[in-house]
């Protein structure tokens, strides 16, 4: 095999290494403990939150014109789940459901933990 193959072999090795690293998800255990309890994914929940909730609660839950600040608000999973499912104030019920609900509840609990 000639030296011309070297870039492609190295490239292939990097691809395999990247895939292995991605499969390992080495930092997944650092996701807040709420994930394990709620079964949601805090990082997917962040995306759902930015899409569905941030217009009222502000980016990252920092508080908006309509919705209250959620960061460090000390909300537990039951409270957040009830708000999502039943609505609260001007917040309509069922804004998110299914997997998105579990993800966003996990995310909100993670940011509201002081």
């Amino acid at each position, binding site marked *: 095999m000639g030296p011309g193959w070297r870039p492609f072999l190295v*490239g292939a090795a990097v*691809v395999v290494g*990247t*895939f292995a690293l991605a499969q390992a*998800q080495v930092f*997944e255990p650092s996701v807040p403990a709420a994930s394990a309890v709620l079964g949601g994914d805090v990082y997917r929940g*962040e995306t759902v939150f930015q899409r569905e909730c941030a217009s009222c609660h502000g980016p990252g839950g920092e508080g908006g014109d309509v919705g209250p600040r959620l960061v460090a608000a000390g909300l537990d999973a039951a409270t957040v789940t009830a708000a999502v499912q039943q609505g609260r104030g001007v917040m309509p019920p069922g804004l998110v459901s299914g997997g998105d609900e579990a993800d966003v509840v996990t995310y909100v609990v993670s940011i509201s933990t002081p």
Partner: protein
Amino acid sequence: MLLADVSETYTDLVTTVFSSTIAAKAWLASAALVLVLVQVTTAARIYGRLTFLPERGPAIARLHRWSGRVAFLLTLPVFFHCVTILGFQTPDTRVALHAVVGTFFYGVFAAKVLIVRDRSLPRWALPTVGLTLASMLGVLWLTSSFWYFTTVRFGL
């Protein structure tokens, strides 16, 4: 515990500037894409195309090298977040395409860097791999940053 500390430090650091880690990824990837467009333009000039641009020479070559270096550095936080935190996921077509192309991205990048210094390969190898790499970043940007800006929010 150490892993948790690293991830939390990363999140704390990123959210001092951006509203979320997702927003940070979207903007860093966008900046990298702009620099990759500079890369493609300067490479075309180096290969004798785009003759309306300034004369090819050391300045164009320097701009090409530095735009590439900075673009690479900008992708590193994105790589860290995508690969070590989110991992390889295929819940829908967009994410699956992003994951597959992203997995190959640094492999093609490594090959491109080595091909630059490899004189044994045909002349078309470098621009081919370079354009492939630029196209891959374009696909990665469309399936992440563009999606974020158009469906989630456009802002820091």
